[in-house]
């Protein structure tokens, strides 16, 4: 009898510890998703985007001739500031990866090349365009590659936290089930021997253990469901749209750099076409984003992006025709002009569509992650308290039984 008491007591205590500690860990991981790996993924995204935007802005500014438009200059500076801030936030998170290091070392080299290009361009020297092309190569071959790796790493960390936070409680639930079975069997045995129907201590213990099991299970199921949605409706959508936006920005830079290179480097134009295929091809990013079951608002944004992208593509074709006729100033005007039919306005529409989509999906991510966190709120304390009651019930129940024996 005493041995039974000890076994049951120890198992119930183990269940309580597993439930409480598990609850705390789970809460930490979900909290990480919300406040650490989630936001860091967003930081990595904005770093990636700011760098791509700097590349395309500077190429456009260059086409305007020696004195670049002030708006483009401040946009470029804003991009560099955003990228530096994101880089600082990511470095502060403690990871020291090769990608982070390439970015910290490579960004000042990039800005140095851009300023050299500007100084030469301002003097009317074609050398400026050569430095700009080198800056763009540094951006694409070094910085954007590293930013992509960083973004992937942050996403992996997010997936890791999410899987941990949404994993089935494999220790607590089986332990709880064993305790419950032992409690029921102990009561049956007692009933058989003593003809007493109920032992109040053990009944209380059984109930509290059952409640604890239920609580852990429900919070797991609800939390996991929200975490799943935060991925499927949130960060996975964001990922596709972020990649689409980066492709669009790169195509925009290609368009301007094709004109900066003045026919002596066709690689930019073939890159433009590759980006368009990646975006609007049958297996392109935008079709992926539109074909998945998504919220109506998001689908509308993606479909608008596809339509606007086609308009921009048509403008690009017309621009090339203008340039091929020998009308370079006409082509430049169409590439950087202020009209609604010029490339900047058409590109801005695509960018806005994607931006709205990303905002919706990021919002969905945050909301689902928050709900996942609420599902776990109070779990550790609650389970702890329930188990203390259960332990007391077990002790009282067995003591009474032992007392009756004497």
């Amino acid at each position, binding site marked *: 009898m005493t041995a039974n008491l000890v076994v049951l007591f120890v198992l119930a205590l183990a269940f309580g510890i597993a439930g409480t500690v598990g609850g705390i860990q789970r809460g930490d991981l979900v909290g990480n998703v919300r406040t650490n790996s989630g936001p860091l993924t967003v930081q990595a995204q904005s770093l990636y985007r700011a760098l791509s935007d700097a590349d395309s802005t500077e190429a456009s500014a260059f086409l305007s*001739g020696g004195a670049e438009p002030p708006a483009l200059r401040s946009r470029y500076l804003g991009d560099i500031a955003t990228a530096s801030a994101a880089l600082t936030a990511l470095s502060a998170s403690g990871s020291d990866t090769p990608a982070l290091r390439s970015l910290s070392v490579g960004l000042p*080299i990039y800005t140095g090349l851009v300023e050299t290009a500007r100084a030469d361009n301002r003097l009317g020297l074609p*050398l400026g365009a*050569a430095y700009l092309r080198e800056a763009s190569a540094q951006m694409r071959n*070094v910085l954007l590659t590293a930013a992509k790796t960083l973004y992937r790493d942050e996403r992996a960390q997010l997936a890791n936290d999410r899987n941990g936070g949404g994993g089935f409680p494999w220790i607590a639930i089986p332990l709880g089930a064993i305790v419950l079975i032992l409690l029921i069997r102990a009561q049956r045995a007692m009933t058989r021997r003593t003809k007493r129907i109920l032992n109040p201590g053990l009944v209380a213990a059984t109930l509290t253990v059952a409640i604890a099991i239920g609580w852990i299970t429900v919070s797991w199921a609800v939390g996991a469901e929200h975490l799943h949605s935060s991925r499927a409706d949130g960060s996975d959508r964001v990922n596709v749209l972020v990649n689409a936006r980066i492709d669009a920005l790169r195509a925009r830079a290609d368009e301007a750099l094709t004109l900066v290179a003045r026919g*002596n480097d066709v690689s930019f134009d073939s890159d433009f076409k590759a980006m368009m295929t990646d975006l609007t091809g049958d297996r392109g990013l935008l079709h992926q984003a539109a074909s998945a079951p998504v919220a109506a608002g998001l689908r509308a944004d993606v479909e608008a992006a596809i339509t606007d992208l086609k308009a921009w593509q048509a403008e690009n074709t017309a621009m090339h025709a203008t340039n091929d006729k*020998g009308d370079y100033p006409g082509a430049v005007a169409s590439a950087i002009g202020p009209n609604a039919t010029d490339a900047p306005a058409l590109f801005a529409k695509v960018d806005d569509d994607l931006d709205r989509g990303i905002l919706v999906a990021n919002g969905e991510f945050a909301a689902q992650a928050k709900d996942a966190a609420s599902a776990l709120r109070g779990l550790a304390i609650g389970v702890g308290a329930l188990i203390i009651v259960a332990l007391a019930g077990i002790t009282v129940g067995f003591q009474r039984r032992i007392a009756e024996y004497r």
Partner: protein
Amino acid sequence: MKSARALLVAVSAAVLLAACSATPADVTGGSVAAPVPNGVQDPAKIPPAATAATACGDPVASLRPPAPLPAPGHMPSGSTMATILARGRLIVGVDQTTYLFGYRDSHGAIVGFDIDMARAMAKAIFGDPSKIQFVAITSAERIPYLLEKKVDLVADTMTINCDRWAQVDFSTVYYNAGQSVLVPSTSKATGIDSLGGQKVCAAIGSTSITNIAARKSHPIPVAVNDWTDCLVMLQQNQVAAISTDDTILRGLAAQDPDVKLVGQPFTSEPYGLAMAPSSSDLVRFVNGVLEQMRSNGQWAAIYDRWLGGPAPTPPGPKYKD
């Protein structure tokens, strides 16, 4: 080679130090790959040497001009010039990337030595140098554009040779260029033959690469997409010299006060204006205008404007009738 290596090592060391000093003391092994122009080939792929030249007699001999030259606005009826006159503008294929010869100024207008030559032709036909349309083309597009009649004339640092005579017609020589060498002003190199084992830059696929590789001193050719990329590499201490036509080198030298041309040209590149083979009357007319420009000082004025005086004697014409 040694000095270039030493320079590179010094530069990398400086960059390394800079990178290290920005990071905490316990971080070591910070390194950085110095940026290079996109698409650089180091060492360069060597384009095959030109096949045995088609025989064409003396390549620089062109068609004799008519005497007297028709007056502006009064072209002989039925002539190629009359067609151009009726159209209202002369269409000329030009380069827009070769500083001083054909490039866009900071306002986007195409200007340069070749451009002024083309304008002189428009002036001779219309009496107005602005009756002209420029079509910016790449080197590879020069002959196709003439054969497809997309342009009347190509004025684009184009070397006259027998291979090209087989496809298009040339005017008499309007500029005698030759492959030369550009080095930093601190360099001790005296010409292509003192650059053995060192990196020398030229454009991808150009005959300049073939010529560099063929030198007995064995310089190491490095190829880039555009001539200005060579100057970027020179400024970044990644090549010891640039070698191509002196015209292009002068355009690069004009963008950097700390470089100099050294040695004598080691190839001969006579430049001519190119025209479609079916328009020999236009070739004769253009040669007549060139004669006038040589004698009335206009050639010298254009030389002064773009390359800085004193202008040498203009290249004399040779005719094969």
